[in-house]
Each structure stands twice: as C-alpha cells, then as structure tokens.
C-alpha cells in the first residue's frame, strides 16, 4: 500500500511471505484465526508504538488497516465516514498504545472492536469528539480488558457452536447487529415481525447464548 519510501525491516518470524500484499497479511478467513506468531508479532509492536516508534506504527497499520476499514465500511457504507473512523482509531492507538496488555490480548481483535464500536456510535448519532479510548458511556468505552480473555480458537468455536443452537431469526439478528450495525427496529423490519416480538426473541436468545457460552 501507499506508504512511500518507508523501508520496513523484514519481520523476524512470520507465517506469511512478505510478498503478500500489505494489509492482506492478516486477512482472517472464516474459522482461520490469526496465528500465534503473527499475533505475538503484532502485540510486540504496541510497546514500541507507545515509546514513539513510527515504523512500528506503520507496520501495525499495514497489517491491520484493511480489516478495520472493512469493518467500518460494512457498518457505515460510506467511504469518507469509514476513513474518519479509521483515522480516529489509529490516532487513538498512537496516543494510548501503552494501555494495551501485550501478554494476553489480540491486537487485531482489539482494534477491530474499537473500529466497530466507533462506527456504531456514528450511526447511532454520537460522534466522539476526542480520540480517547475511554469515552464514558458509549460502547467504545467498554472495558477493553475483557478482550484479553478472548484469545484462542476454542472461544471462536464456542461462539459458533452456541450461535448454531439459537433459532435462525434471532441468530441472524444478532449477527447483523454486530456486523452491519442493525438496530432493533431494523432487524424487526428485516425479519418482518413486530418490534416487540423481535426484541423478546433477541432477549431470550441472548440469555440462552450466555448460558451456552458459560457452560
């Protein structure tokens, strides 16, 4: 991608050839979680970024921005707005990289959730005014430390399995809410049921989902 004249050192260990187009390096296919090596390499960039290393910052961007842009664009359906979300997230990372817990969390997940939440905030009519990671009260402010828990393929499989146990209608609604930014009234319209019906279906499904995930 277009980062002119910035020569990056070859990564010490990577499962991916350097010839892979930048940004696609960490493209995650369904059910193919990012490798441990790649995750560790990404995580190692964050303390470097926290100390002001701009090359590390550039590498993080190269390896994660296509995912984040895809996430933001899918929700916002507007390139300019998705670009603004992308910028907000990375500026925020530049300023707050030290807060990321290297040992446990997956950077690309952390970043993708940040981008996703900021995009949701926008379509729900709240435009954050600062690039802080902890704006009180919006989804982007959630306790991101919870993401540290989400680390392995088992968690991914557990989510898939538990989603599969839900009825089709609330499952579609849940996935569409998370990935497309659909609201209660939008999923009700999609599913062609009254709003109240949709909401109780979703509530029941969420309670079932939690029980399934916690057992």
């Amino acid at each position: 991608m277009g980062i002119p004249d910035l020569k990056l050192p070859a990564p010490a260990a990577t499962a991916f050839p350097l010839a892979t187009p930048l940004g696609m390096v960490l493209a995650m296919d369904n059910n193919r979680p990012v490798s441990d090596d790649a995750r560790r390499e990404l995580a190692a960039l964050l303390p470097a970024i926290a100390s002001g290393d701009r090359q590390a910052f550039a590498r993080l961007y190269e390896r994660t921005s296509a995912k984040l842009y895809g996430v933001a664009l899918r929700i916002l359906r507007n390139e300019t707005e998705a670009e603004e979300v992308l910028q907000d997230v990375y500026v925020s990372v530049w300023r707050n990289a030290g807060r990321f817990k290297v040992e446990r969390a997956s950077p690309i997940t952390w970043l993708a959730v940040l981008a996703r939440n900021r995009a949701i905030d926008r379509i729900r009519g709240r435009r954050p005014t600062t690039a802080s990671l902890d704006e009180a009260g919006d989804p982007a402010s959630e306790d991101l430390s919870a993401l540290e828990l989400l680390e392995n393929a088992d968690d991914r499989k557990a989510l898939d399995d538990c989603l599969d146990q839900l009825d089709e209608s609330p499952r579609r609604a849940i996935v569409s809410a998370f990935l497309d930014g659909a609201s209660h009234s939008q999923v009700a319209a999609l599913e062609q049921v009254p709003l109240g019906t949709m909401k109780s279906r979703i509530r029941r499904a969420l309670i079932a989902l939690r029980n399934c995930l916690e057992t």
Partner: protein
Amino acid sequence: MTVDRLGPDERGALAAQFALGLLEGAELTQARGLAASDPAFRAEVGRWSARFSPLLDRVEDRMPAPAVWQSIMAVTAPLRSAANDDLPDLRRTVARWRLASGGLGAIAAALALALVTRPEPVAPPAPQVAVTTPMVATLAGDDPAPVRLVANWDPAARQLIITPAMTPAIEASKAMELWLIPADGRPRSMGVMPAEGPMRAEIDPAMGAMLDSGGTLAISIEQSGGSPSGTPLGPVVATGKLVAA
C-alpha cells in the same frame, strides 16, 4: 423498563443488546447512562463485546485509500504529544477537514510524505537538547472571523510547515504572508501561504536559529506574492507564540 428491577439475566441481556448496537432511543440513552455510572454493567458490556468479536472475522478486508495513512501521519507527527492541550485537537480537526474536503490527496500527500520520509530515530529519542527541539505554534485570531493555523518547526529537517485549519476569506489578489517576530521585534517574512493547503518551507540556517529561539509567528494579509516592502503592511489576522513541542 426500570433497570433496578431487572434480574441478572435481563440486565445481562441489556448489556448484550448495548454491545451489539441494537438499542435505540430511550433504551440506548438508559444503557449509555448505566455504562457511564456502573462499572459492573460496563464490564458486562465489555464481556459481551469480547464474546461477539470473533464475528468480525467474517468481514471482508477492504484496502483503505493511501490518503488515510498520510492523514494519520500528518495528525500524529512530528509530535508524540503536545505540551499545548488544544493542539492535538486542532491538528485533528485539520486532518478531518482535509479528509472531508475530499481534496486530501495532493495536500496531505505532500505534507505526510515529508514527514514519512524523514529519517526516524530507531531507538526512542533521548531527551532532546534545546537546539534540536521541535517547536509548535497555534496561530489564532478572531477579527473579524476565527482564523486558525498550526505551525510545526522541525529543526533537524529545517522544515517549517504551516497547516491551515480555518482561514480568512480573502480576495484573489491577496495572500496570507507568514512572519516571524523574534526577540528583536523586527518581523521577518517566512513566505507566502499557497492559496490552498499547507505551506512547507525549507528554512535557511540563520532563520532557523531564530525559530529555535522562539518568538511569535504572525499571518498578515498582503498582496499576492507578499509584501514588497519586506515588512507587513496589511492587517494581521492571526498570531501565535512558538513553544517547544
């Protein structure tokens, strides 16, 4: 719905709906309030967000335009963090304005390319000695309308970048001229702003030494091409003191 009366299941479900982004209207307001005031609820929202995050793997990657990175570089460089609190916001505004204007490419590219291609220290920079300290200034004026520009002086590259955020409406035959007013109080012209976008100037060592020692930057409205007399003749629309970045 009264949250206090919610059982743990219902409360968890509300947190889940908030994390999913399903909520609207009064429920959204309520959940935002709860998230702001109740750490347990906030943590529950975070847990739900983590639970759902593997879904993001299903989203197809999309390559953002190169201009986005250039803009990020322009916003974050060369300052790690600014001593002046409004500066980051202002610089952000500048970049956002550039994004929004759609004309980002040429402007930001020129600016960011300069920033990107400058050799970066490999190790975290040691505490810097005075002579190489980058300087910044926020040039501001409000008469008759708000004018805001950001100045970045990079002594290592001997480069002065002036990025406009809010500019005055001026006639086509006029231009904004930048002046440095050092300790001796005599204004020195630092060049004329282009009609659009930032000004990037290579500064000769003598003038660079003056910038290093601080002083005030000012913008006056002069005839296009700059004041022929070498001193500002037109109205001064913005000024700002240089401070260590």
